[in-house]
């Protein structure tokens, strides 16, 4: 509003500018059209597919070099006895040896145990949390707080929990001990409890992911169904099991599959916390593979183990993609 006085003083200037602008535009308009686009361009051909292939090429080339090429190398390596020096062909020996390798089989069993424990706790806690957060006034702040652990490097999280679990000065250890759950031995030192320790760290870091995915699913629960059910006299509990949970199911399936594959992918925190010990109590398969390949540098043997791990992951991936492509309940 303060500008009005200054404007009114120079109103003639404004008018003249406007006039000039119009004159200019008339001038442009008056120019023959051919002068603007003096050289008419050729129309784009109807199916210029090759153009898209050029755009795609660099990314595909990079990806081929860092994923496809190594994959063939992996297969070749798995047929050789490779260590630091070089390789010699030994046929399928690396694979046949796996069947008698107790630690390889234990690795799979431990991986299954670890994943099931992690996922059970994460889904249980995560969904409960999502239901409560969804009906809270402070949803936005709660979600922000919950996102925090996911931003931390898993290796740093492992170190932090190593500190908290410590038998002489760890706060977490002190709390567990004071509550009478643990005696004076550290949770990481005993083969019976070490698995729970690494599960807890994973639960601490990744439960919020399940919560947030479930929260997105809760927003999609159709309101009319809830209302209809309530008009029929359903209790909130019944509402949850009859309507909310079935609607949540497709989203939860994605969450579970993603976390399941992440359990295969990331072993950073386990390497830092226990390194697979004590004994082999937490040596889940990826940790065992890490040990074989990068501690003892038995790369050929490692390649055979890696291939079994990859095949399982690819099968899981197929499942995941199929779930992705299914239309999800409500509007996506």
């Amino acid at each position: 509003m303060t500008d009005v006085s200054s404007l009114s003083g120079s109103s003639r200037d404004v008018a003249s500018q406007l006039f000039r602008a119009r004159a200019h535009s008339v001038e442009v308009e008056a120019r023959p059209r051919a002068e603007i686009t003096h050289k008419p361009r050729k129309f784009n051909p109807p199916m210029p597919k090759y153009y898209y292939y050029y755009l795609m090429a660099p990314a595909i080339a990079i990806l081929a070099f860092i994923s496809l090429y190594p994959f063939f190398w992996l297969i070749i390596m798995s047929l050789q006895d490779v260590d630091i020096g070089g390789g010699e062909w030994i046929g399928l020996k690396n694979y046949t040896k796996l069947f008698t390798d107790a630690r390889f089989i234990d690795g799979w069993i431990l991986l299954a145990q670890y994943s099931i424990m992690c996922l059970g706790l994460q889904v249980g806690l995560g969904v409960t949390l999502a239901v409560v957060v969804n009906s809270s006034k402070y949803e936005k702040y709660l979600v922000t707080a919950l996102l925090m652990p996911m931003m931390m490097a898993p290796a740093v999280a492992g170190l932090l929990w190593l500190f908290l679990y410590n038998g002489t000065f760890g706060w977490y250890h002190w709390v567990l001990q004071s509550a009478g759950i643990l005696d004076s031995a550290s949770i990481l030192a005993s083969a019976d409890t070490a698995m729970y320790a690494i599960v807890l760290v994973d639960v601490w870091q990744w439960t919020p992911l399940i919560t947030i995915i479930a929260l997105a699913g809760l927003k999609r629960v159709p309101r009319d169904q809830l209302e209809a059910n309530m008009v029929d006299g359903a209790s909130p509990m019944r509402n949850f099991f009859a309507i909310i949970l079935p609607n949540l199911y497709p989203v939860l399936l994605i969450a579970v599959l993603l976390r399941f594959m992440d359990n295969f992918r990331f072993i950073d925190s386990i390497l830092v916390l226990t390194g697979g010990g004590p004994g082999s109590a937490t040596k889940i398969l990826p940790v065992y593979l890490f040990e074989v390949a990068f501690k003892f540098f038995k790369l050929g043997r490692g390649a055979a183990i890696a291939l079994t791990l990859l095949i399982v992951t690819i099968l899981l991936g197929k499942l995941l993609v199929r779930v992705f492509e299914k239309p999800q309940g409500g509007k996506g």
Partner: protein
Amino acid sequence: MASRDVVSYDTPLSRALSIFGTVFVAFYLVWTLLPFVVMFVSSFKDMLEAFKLPVVGDWAGMTVFFDFSPTLKHYTTLFTENSFGTYIMNSLIAAGGSAVISVVFGSLAAYSLSRVDFRGKQDLFFWIISTRMAPVVAVMVPLYAIFRSLDLVGTLPGLILAYTTFNLPFAIWMLKGFFDNVPYAIEEAQMVDGATRFEAFRSILPLVAPGIGAFVVLCVLFAWNDFLFAAIIGSGGAKTLPVATRELVQPQNIQWGSIMAAGVVTTAPMMLLGLVIRKYLVAGLTMGAVKE
């Protein structure tokens, strides 16, 4: 919002449930956030003060946690005795380099994949996503052998390339979803006006720019937080923050104060970045399956 406030119940059961819910969330928040508080506060404590604990079962003694005189010495040793300045630079270059490469080539590929159809496209997609999902250790076995023969182990370019194994497929996958949402009609209109195909592509870039920016940040986040690749492929010449932090754990002498300080240095920037791109975070962490 859909499932809330439709009809308000007021039965003893629902009240009990809501009280239980509040208590549960309160406990959960304490459990989630307390480790951060411990890390942050311990990084300012002298060694002996950090190790102080109350007697077992003495819950009132917990105030001993705040009984210390703050010191910055752990942070200064990080930069004087350990060369954390270099490690921060290494982390920045490796994470930033791979993020930029991934998003530049990824957006070109994502755009063209979004606009063209050909046989085997689904298979190509499956290959891309399974590259992203493959276990890091399994990928590293052949990659290590190849990089060793190319003398890339222990160098930053090697680490950048290694991070690209998971960032590039991620970028292609996520950005394709983005380009799918831009109507082709915009480009068509541009081309009717005489634009070339590349100009048409450039004209829709402003529409997807915020998303592209967010995915650069997400790629940085994934690479910055990586430990395995950095420990093996980057070992020696290209030490990044998580690896350097891990190396403060020595068999004889674990420097907890420095570790906590290094943890803060590693975590704080990523937390800030995470908050900046919060809108895209959930989509990014779930491979685009869930949007907030």
